[in-house]
């Protein structure tokens, strides 16, 4: 087990950690979503990389082909990409609504405003 033979796994782990760190450490809601995107993308690599054989072709049954790559991970990840896009789109839509309601996309500022709401009796309705 060397660094080279498990290269794709090292990259996967690195991307997972980078993504998770951004989600936790950034205050900007958009940057958090970028981190979440990187975190999800790392998983795509985890699935796709082991499915590929060097010299492998698409699974076509025929005499001239001997080594096939596994197509299933690709299909799975296609689904995961769709899920990822939907999550990101929804996340961004929520950030737009948060910006409209709070006038800020900084988590600290928003939590501060919420803390102020909690002490004052009548919170503002978000639709005005």
């Amino acid at each position, binding site marked *: 087990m060397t660094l080279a033979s498990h290269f794709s796994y090292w990259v996967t782990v690195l991307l*997972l950690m980078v993504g*998770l760190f951004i*989600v936790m450490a950034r205050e900007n*809601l958009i940057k*958090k979503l970028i981190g*979440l995107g990187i*975190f*999800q993308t790392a*998983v795509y690599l*985890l*699935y796709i990389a*082991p499915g590929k054989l060097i010299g492998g072709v698409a699974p076509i049954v025929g005499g001239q082909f001997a080594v096939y790559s596994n197509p299933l*991970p690709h299909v*799975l990840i296609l*689904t*995961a990409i769709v*899920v990822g896009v*939907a*999550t990101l789109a*929804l*996340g961004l839509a*929520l*950030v737009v*609504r*948060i910006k409209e*309601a*709070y006038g800020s996309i900084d988590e600290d500022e*928003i*939590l501060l405003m*919420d803390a102020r*709401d909690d002490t004052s*009796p009548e*919170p*503002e*309705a*978000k*639709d005005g």
Partner: protein
Amino acid sequence: MLTQHFPALLVVVPLMAAPLIVFARRSLASWLIALLATAITFGIAASLLAQTLSEGTLVYAMGSWEAPLGIEYRIDAAGAFVAVIVAAMGLIVMPYSRVGIAAEVRSEEHYLYYALMMLCLAGLLGILVTGDAFNVFVFLEVSSLATYVLIAMGRDRRALVAAYQYLLMGTIGATLYVVGVGLLYLETGTLNLADMATRLVDVGDSRGVLAALAFITVGISLKIALFPLHLWLPNAYAYAPSPVSAFLAATATKVSIYVLMRYFFTIFGATEVFDARATGAILLGLSLAAMFIPAVVAIFQHDMKRLLAYSSVSQIGYITLGISLDSVEGLMASAMHLFNHALTKGGLFLVLGGVVLRCGGAGFDRLAGLGHTMPVAAFAMVVGGLSLIGVPGTAGFISKWYLVSAAMHEGQWWLVGAVLASSLLAVIYVWRFVEVAYFRAPPADHPAPGEAPLSMQLPALAMIAACVYFGIDATWSSEVSMRVAEVLMYNPGVGQ
């Protein structure tokens, strides 16, 4: 025969109802479609439970593609039991929603609310019925995405932040789960859960399997809101529209608990999870922490919805405590508390929804004197609260009783004390409500509100009545829970 397609229809009916509702657009029409779809779904779920109890596991090859090439749906008594809880909750929340969301969701968004409820229902039921590990992820995300939007529909702007935070935490949880499934796929070469269980036996001791267990456990625990991964839950439940809070409290975390049980006992096997590692001890520790710390936090809340949300985190601790005992008795207590707590918390949130409609909020300042202004609702809340505490004669007592006897069966006598002490904390937070509702004068500016509309009152009271019914006659719930525990414990999921 139509019945043989029931496992697929359980998901297809609500899934197809969602686009129909979007086409219908009109509030009344979309409500009728949703009501019809949930009624059919509940019928299917109930018939599946009856079938699985008498015939064992049902297997359905999607599109007639046999497993392991095709995706198969596989449902046994355990899945069907949780499916009945979810479908029943859907059926109860639907008639309630017509009036329940009128004050909390803008009228032009009503059809979207019903469509999202249908998607959420389809996702949750899909998790229960599918026999494919990756499919679980897809359905988990279908239900979660719908849930995020439903929470964001709440009236308060804090609902948006709560939904955003849940989106981050939920996505991290689901992604960790997919990493675990990917590792299992690398080890076994299959995604079919039953197939995976058989092949894992041959894989033996491998670091990949261990990592997969860790990823799946942590990922699903995030969705369960197992302490200390519960931070998304209180705000999500507190700011979501009332029917959504009730539906989620009774179903979403319960389905995730089912997934965890499935992986622990059916896929990895109890020997791999509990005997070879300290999983049991870790889960026991977290469950105990969940039983105490959020219960203490609940005592200091000033808003009834938040109080109930923290109480949910605390009650989830009892369910995972039963799992951590690694015995049929423990699992049975877990399954039973899953059912009883769904009844209790679902009922409480439904009653509270009516109160919020009349009083304009769930803060204790708004609820003061509720015992005089809304006597029926206040009384129902107290009965539900007694079930949270576990007073004899309520559903909560039965499951705590089984939990305590399961602990004694394992020789863990000190757990009896822990369950009792945690119940005392529940007494304190329920008393907070009693004190506010019965011993404080209504606020001076309060127009005497009167009871909630009948369409909200009836479903809510039905749930609270069920709490009492299953607390007095627990024959059905205990028998089915026992079957669920046996299926999870002894049936390795391999075809029958």
